[in-house]
């Protein structure tokens, strides 16, 4: 298994509070991704990073920000959590890039976030 950990694994918070989720990898892969998984929607990309301090938006980026100050860590922040952000959040990594013909994404175990 790829060395990807996510913390916390479970979190319950209240509407309007800030929340930060952490993804940590030990593979030294360049690319990191944040997805959310909701019933009936599969996974949807929130943001991704292609290097330290280099990030870009995904399909559902509104209400989220990210930071990557070290190769191994990719943080996802909800500045003011809303109930619509209740979801399971997955981190993923890939070694060289976004071309999945030549690269593979590895996924972390997920963080279940509940916003009351």
């Amino acid at each position, binding site marked *: 298994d790829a060395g990807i950990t996510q913390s916390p694994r479970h979190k319950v918070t209240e509407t309007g509070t800030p929340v930060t989720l952490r993804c940590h990898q030990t593979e030294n892969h360049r690319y990191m991704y944040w997805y959310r998984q909701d019933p009936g929607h*599969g996974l949807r990309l929130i943001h*991704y990073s292609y290097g330290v301090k280099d990030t870009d938006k*995904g399909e559902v980026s509104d209400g989220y920000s990210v930071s990557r100050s070290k190769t191994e860590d990719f943080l996802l922040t909800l500045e003011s959590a809303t109930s619509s952000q209740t979801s399971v959040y997955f981190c993923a990594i890939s070694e060289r890039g976004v071309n*999945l*013909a030549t690269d593979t*994404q*590895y*996924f972390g175990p*997920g963080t279940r976030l509940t916003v009351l």
Partner: protein
Amino acid sequence: AQSVTQPDIHITVSEGASLELRCNYSYGATPYLFWYVQSPGQGLQLLLKYFSGDTLVQGIKGFEAEFKRSQSSFNLRKPSVHWSDAAEYFCAVGARANDMRFGAGTRLTVKP
């Protein structure tokens, strides 16, 4: 716009029986297609992928999938299901990780 449809939300099969999970896609060019499996409490694991060449793709854990361009389908098959195959299965389409589209998933239950 690209999209993926998995028509079956939940499928139940008996252990030892054959399995086929359906996936239909919409994509403007030659698609890259993927099947992932997610066991309870785990992240997604890649089973197999297709991006060119032979339309019958072999994957891990004894799974295979067949790309049929005329039907816009990429169905996943396994000849004999094991209890450990119980999981959720996701089909996805897209050439790049930052524009992939996932289906809503099919949950597989295996009866003893």
